[in-house]
């Protein structure tokens, strides 16, 4: 068996079981340490001053009085960030976003920071900093930002991705285009063509734990940082570049993470904490308030999307076209390109064209939010699929089944699919009892499909066998919700030992090679691939040890069920050796037993889901109630099915919140009016029903166990599934998210007026 051999028809012993997670007891007893739960000796408290304006040039910042306040140990502004020599435009944007240099681009943009002996003194010092602003015209709406005469946010913004390069600056930062075939010809073949515009509000990941870190840099350039992050190795690399440190000398330890969903893939306050620490030569703790999290971390894009699709009377989609306009905050992003790539990825289309436009606005810098950019595109496309089905009098699920992508389909974004699960999720949906359940008065049923790429990338793991035969897996991707359990299951499976004889530990950056983040649904996929390789290297090592112990040829030693077995003529009289037997003699056979693996995990299998939901709409108020919700998704192989269900349910709940209520609301002054959980209301327990799940397992041929990422796809279908359900309940097509009660009510009234 090769080191990465996929296992066909493997019967799993550990993988697929549902043991208690190893980090669980700490989390139910209050012992687990999150970002803000950690302190360093001699630590100072940091606080950040933020712009109250949506768009303003910074004329001057006077920090003299703050610096003189007793107890203040350091004050920093953008002048303290040394950007000379940094050429990476993304990194320069990160720095400018962490601390505004010439311009405050949004309400909440950081302009100065203080470190003091306690939080109260730090806050008092902020009030002594005098910033002179010159207010500029602002724009927060994505369509307005594209219109002629809109305030120009960055005078050096010349649209990327356009040939020849434009000579006039605009708020269109990036243009991307995907597709194949000829859409004009495709539309001519259609019997029905529909064109619509859809809009989605800006939502936030809404993790319950605000960003927090404790940073310490010594004058010799070495430092350490404790931080809640989805990727401590990436944070280390970027912080080292920003501060001009050697990455190896900055040791970053990830805390337990209180939710991230993409929002903790980005630096917000960490470079500021490091800078304050360097200036004060003391450790500095920085914790965001909830208001800061909403105003100044990275929500998703608000969007405006045009879709045009054509279908024949017998249900063949002949052409599909979309222009997707995504707000990226004040800095260029690739968010619209993800929308453009994912929008039609569920379907087998001869003629398809998508154009993504990233638009600068005076809102916080957009960051990843679970399958970033895909839910909005799916809202537009899946809403239109329902409408097309209605127009040709075909069941919406049958239209989807008829046009679903399959193995060999050239995807709308380029690659040709291998074995995929869209057809299987649709078939399962069609057969699901939910589809046939009766609906009550004012209730509507909706369904929608969703796609996410999934990513792989760099992972690195150490597998160490203890002298007693137990195993420690050291890995480098953050555990956002069960990774230590699933990694332990994988190691137990591969070594053939019980789950409770494995300890999975997340390394700090000083203990392991570079690992990419827990994002792109890559954590379990990529780290398990590396862990399996580590185990197989250790098994090879243990076979060699057994051969030495038995004094037989290596080729005569096989590995089965956690034991070395002697085979061939030379070894038939030897009783099998367990890992504990071999480990006990390690000191005589070559020292500690270990397997170190480092990989670029290619072949993350794409992921598909189909959701079904029933929504009740009060026709007098527009108030909605989620009556029933079902998630069907392909997991490749569910390592810990309970936590896979948890991912399905959690993504669906976030999508429900986004669909029905969540939205950044900006006033005319460009200031965020709802930076708190009272007014940015995420779903609470009484808002939701149980969320049923069905896990499908269509193995990913590129992973030894068939694993696909499962974390993100579940947020893709809900916006459209709910939109379709509300539309079916009210007989009014909903085209704007969130479908809040007033918005639904006005749609119902507008429809009545037009009747």
């Amino acid at each position: 068996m090769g080191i990465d051999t996929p296992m066909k028809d493997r019967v799993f012993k550990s993988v697929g079981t549902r043991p208690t997670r190893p980090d669980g007891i700490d989390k139910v007893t209050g012992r687990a340490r999150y970002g803000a739960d950690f302190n360093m000796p001699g630590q100072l408290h940091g606080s950040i001053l933020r712009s109250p304006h949506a768009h303003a040039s910074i004329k001057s910042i006077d920090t003299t009085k703050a610096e003189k306040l007793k107890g203040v140990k350091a004050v920093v502004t953008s002048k303290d960030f040394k950007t000379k020599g940094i050429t990476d435009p993304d990194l320069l944007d990160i720095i400018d976003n962490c601390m505004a240099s010439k311009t405050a681009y949004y309400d909440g943009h950081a302009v100065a920071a203080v470190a003091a002996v306690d939080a109260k003194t730090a806050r008092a010092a902020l009030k002594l900093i005098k910033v002179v602003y010159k207010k500029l015209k602002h724009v927060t709406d994505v369509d307005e930002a594209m219109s002629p005469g809109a305030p120009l946010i960055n005078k050096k913004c010349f649209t990327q991705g356009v040939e020849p390069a434009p000579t006039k600056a605009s708020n269109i930062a990036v243009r991307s285009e995907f597709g194949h075939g000829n859409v004009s010809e495709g539309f001519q073949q259609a019997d029905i063509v529909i064109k619509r515009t859809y809009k989605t509000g800006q939502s936030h990941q809404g993790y319950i734990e605000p960003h927090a870190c404790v940073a310490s840099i010594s004058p010799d350039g070495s430092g350490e940082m404790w931080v809640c992050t989805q990727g401590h190795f990436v944070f280390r690399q970027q912080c080292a570049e920003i501060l001009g440190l050697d990455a190896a000398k900055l040791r970053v330890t990830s805390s337990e993470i209180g939710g991230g969903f993409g929002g903790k893939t980005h630096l917000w306050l960490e470079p500021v904490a490091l800078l304050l620490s360097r200036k004060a030569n003391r450790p500095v703790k920085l914790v965001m308030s909830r208001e800061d999290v909403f105003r100044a971390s990275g929500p998703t894009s608000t969007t405006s999307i045009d879709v045009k699709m054509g279908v024949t009377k017998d249900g063949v989609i002949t052409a599909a076209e979309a222009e997707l306009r995504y707000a990226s905050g004040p800095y260029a992003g690739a968010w619209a390109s993800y929308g453009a790539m994912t929008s039609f990825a569920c379907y087998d289309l001869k003629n398809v064209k998508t154009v993504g436009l990233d638009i600068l606005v005076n809102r916080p810098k957009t960051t990843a939010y679970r399958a970033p950019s895909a839910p909005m595109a799916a809202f537009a496309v899946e809403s239109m699929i329902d409408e097309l089905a209605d127009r040709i009098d075909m069941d919406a699920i049958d239209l989807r089944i008829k046009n679903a992508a399959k193995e060999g389909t050239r995807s709308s974004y380029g690659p040709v699919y291998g074995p995929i699960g869209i057809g299987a999720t649709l078939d399962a949906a069609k057969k699901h009892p939910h589809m046939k359940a009766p609906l009550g008065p004012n209730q509507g049923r909706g369904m929608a499909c969703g796609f996410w790429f999934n990513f792989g990338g760099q992972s690195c793991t150490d597998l160490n066998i203890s002298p007693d035969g137990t195993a420690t897996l050291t890995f480098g991707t953050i555990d956002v919700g069960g990774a230590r359990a699933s990694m332990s299951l994988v190691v137990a499976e591969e070594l053939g030992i019980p789950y409770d004889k494995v300890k999975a530990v997340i390394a700090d950056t000083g203990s392991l090679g570079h690992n990419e983040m827990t994002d792109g649904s890559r954590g379990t996929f990529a780290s398990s691939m590396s862990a399996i390789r580590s185990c197989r290297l250790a098994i090879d090592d243990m076979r060699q040890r057994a051969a030495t112990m038995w004094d037989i040829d290596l080729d005569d030693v096989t590995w089965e069920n956690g034991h070395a077995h002697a085979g061939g003529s030379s070894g038939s009289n030897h009783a099998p050796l367990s890992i504990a037997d071999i480990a006990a003699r390690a000191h005589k056979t070559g020292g500690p037993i270990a397997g170190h693996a480092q990989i670029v995990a290619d072949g993350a299998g794409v992921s598909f889901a189909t959701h079904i939901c029933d929504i009740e709409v009060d026709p007098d108020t527009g108030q909605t109630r989620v009556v029933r919700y079902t998630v069907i998704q392909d997991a490749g192989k569910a390592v810990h099915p309970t936590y896979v269900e948890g991912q399905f349910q959690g993504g669906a709940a976030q999508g429900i919140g986004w669909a029905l209520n969540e939205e950044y609301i900006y006033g005319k002054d460009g200031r965020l009016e709802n930076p708190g959980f009272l007014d940015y209301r995420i779903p609470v327990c009484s808002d939701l029903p149980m969320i049923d799940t069905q896990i499908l397992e269509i193995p990913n041929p590129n992973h030894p166990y068939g694993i696909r990422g499962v974390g993100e796809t579940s947020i893709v279908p809900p916006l459209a599934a709910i939109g379709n359900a509300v539309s079916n309940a009210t007989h009014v097509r909903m085209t704007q998210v969130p479908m809040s009660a007033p918005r639904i009510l006005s749609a119902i009234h507008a429809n009545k007026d037009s009747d």
Partner: protein
Amino acid sequence: MSVLVNSTINGDQYEFVCEPDETLLDALRDRVGMTGVKEGCGTGDCGACSITLDGALVCSCLVLGAEAEGRKIETVEGMSDGDKLHPLQTKFLEHAALQCGVCTPGFLIAAKALLEKNPDPSEEQVRYALAGNLCRCTGYDKIVRAVLAAAKQMRKA
């Protein structure tokens, strides 16, 4: 001027000093070291800082540290009986009712307060009793199941 406060926390006597305008949440975390009490919002909207004060469920971010003088506080740190976990803790683990776990201490305290008042709640009663606690990971499904399962087990005991 700091305030000296005497409280009973998880059955033990504590004496701590806090500022007059300091929240009980900050006092518990920074003065007493009970960091199982979490801050998610600081405005009483998320329930991560839930504790009981003389048996009443409160957000500790909305109470001043000084108000705890002479009162009984229960936090997640006091839920288990020695090395024996509370049935709610056990059921939360069995049902995977936590993913990131940062909201868990608040949910456990709120659920315990519910079951002390109503040992046999319906699903709907659980959902409304826990509506002041935000969880962004689970969609609440497994939390509600864990609370119902714990209630069932506690009724048998």
